[in-house]
């Protein structure tokens, strides 16, 4: 390892690999990826199901095969990768402190950094599921790792809490491996994952889904013996008298993902209280000069293709910064208006790229059944509009905006823009 790099990427998942590749292609000389796992690929390695690559490769690939394309490209471009290595601190001055069992304590300087640490799963502690504390309560990603990589079947009879994609995918996976998935229960009155996973993971295998239902109690001495479920009303309050006891030996939690930003905070990166990731502009720059971020560390995506695209943008921006290109401060802020829960980027320079195209990723705050328009507003004035067939919190909406066109409609003195979703 060298002492100074043009670009250092933290994390060798889909965002980090794409960032390193594009940084190299954009002329960065020394590019290093630091990864805590023993190989590159990130979470894709345990996502052995297909469904990846429909946007970038126009193919339907399993996760490891999707990752393979990027790993091979990174290797052929001589991106340096160091594994089994944990970054412990990053400073605002872009000093990186890491450690591993071979080199011990490592100190590096980076001309630019890309944060690509991904996310973590919400656990039992974060949803405060009451009851005993026996073995047999797992997060969905943990079960995915046990079954798909390590070769362990962690139970026989499963109940799954949460209708997120990983939970549904694991319901199918466990069924294929001979386990029994009794049912999936979901607190909200709607599915929180993609509908195609409802079809191909639950319907195909006859696995029941119960909406507006949650866990009232987990029981079991050493191992989970049963869970007690209860129906909830529109305010998500349990309805007395609707309790049911389901005998099972395992409970899987598929209750959401949280961007992992301990390192970002240490570096002084400002986080968005809604996405829980760094506030970024469309070049994926954070508030700290020379520190960029991309992927699930910024906001939780539905599709890996868009993670790779954001990583690529961050890599290009990092290479430019490392080469001494001037920094363009954000000229606009983008905040959620009616019907919108999160929006990323939160800031726009309006200057990047030859076609000044800006990718905006947003999530609805509630269900819109019919056609909607997704608008960008300057006060009450619509400066950009896009029609979707529907909007659901479970499905991210991606806008590809030609900022040159949009900017023409802006008055000169406004910098605060809002995004809203309106019924048509």
């Amino acid at each position, binding site marked *: 390892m060298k002492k100074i790099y043009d670009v250092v990427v933290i994390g060798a998942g889909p965002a980090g690999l794409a960032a390193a590749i594009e940084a190299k292609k954009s002329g960065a000389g020394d590019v290093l990826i630091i990864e805590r796992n023993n190989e590159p690929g990130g979470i894709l390695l345990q996502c052995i199901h*297909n469904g990846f690559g429909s946007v970038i490769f126009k193919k339907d690939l399993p996760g490891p095969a999707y990752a393979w394309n990027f790993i091979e490209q990174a290797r052929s471009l001589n991106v340096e990768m160091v594994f089994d290595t944990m970054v412990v601190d990053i400073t605002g001055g872009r000093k990186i402190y890491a450690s591993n069992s071979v080199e011990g304590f490592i100190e590096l300087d980076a001309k630019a950094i890309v944060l690509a640490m991904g996310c973590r799963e919400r656990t039992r502690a974060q949803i405060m599921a009451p009851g005993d504390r026996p073995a047999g309560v797992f997060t969905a990603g943990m079960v995915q790792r046990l079954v798909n990589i390590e070769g362990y079947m962690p139970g026989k009879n499963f109940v799954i809490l949460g209708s997120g994609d990983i939970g549904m995918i694991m319901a199918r996976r466990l069924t*294929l491996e*001979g386990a029994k998935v009794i049912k999936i229960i979901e607190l909200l009155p709607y599915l929180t994952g993609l509908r*195609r996973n409802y*079809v191909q993971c639950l319907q*195909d295998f006859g696995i029941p889904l119960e909406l507006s239902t949650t866990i009232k109690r987990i029981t079991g001495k050493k191992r989970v013996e049963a869970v007690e479920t209860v129906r909830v009303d529109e305010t998500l309050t349990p309805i007395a008298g609707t309790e049911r006891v389901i005998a099972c030996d395992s409970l899987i939690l598929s209750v959401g993902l949280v961007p992992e930003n301990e390192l970002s905070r240490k570096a002084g990166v400002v986080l968005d209280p809604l996405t829980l990731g760094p506030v970024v502009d469309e070049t994926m720059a954070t508030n700290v000069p020379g520190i960029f971020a991309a992927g699930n560390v910024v906001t939780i995506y539905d599709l890996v293709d868009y993670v790779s695209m954001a990583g690529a943008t961050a890599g290009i921006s990092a290479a430019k910064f490392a080469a001494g290109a001037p920094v363009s401060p954000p000229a606009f802020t983008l905040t959620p208006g009616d019907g919108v829960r999160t929006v990323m980027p939160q800031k726009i320079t309006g200057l990047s790229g030859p076609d000044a195209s800006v990718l905006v990723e947003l999530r609805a705050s509630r269900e819109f059944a019919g056609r909607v328009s997704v608008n960008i507003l300057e006060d009450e004035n619509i400066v950009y509009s896009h029609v979707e067939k529907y909007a659901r919190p479970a*499905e991210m909406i991606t806008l590809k905006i030609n900022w040159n066109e949009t900017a023409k409609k802006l008055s000169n003195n406004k910098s605060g823009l809002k995004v809203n979703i309106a019924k048509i």
Partner: protein
Amino acid sequence: MEKKFICIRCPQGCEITTTLDGLGAITDITGNSCKLGIDYVKSELSDPRRTITTTVAVTGGELPLCPVWSEKPIPKDRVMEAAAVIRPITVAAPVDINQVICENILGTGINIISSRAITKGGQ
């Protein structure tokens, strides 16, 4: 007769409504955003298929399992049967990506192939 589908060909998941005549032929399709939706409905009505993804055991590898998939979708009603055929398979490391793990699964003419490489390793 009206029949509803949720298309699984891409993550968008279009809700498609089809009208069928007495013989089961499609007379109308609405709700699809692209041609894939029409293909999907036609195949769901005549020959529903799914891609199967699972793992096989590896001996002498850096990891104990190798992920595998059907290079093309297989008949939906034979997915569990295919899983049972694949489950006992063991391969020796090294495994290459796209290596044929099980040829012509259940006589469908479709191969089961690896979705990553597994190098030799010390377990």
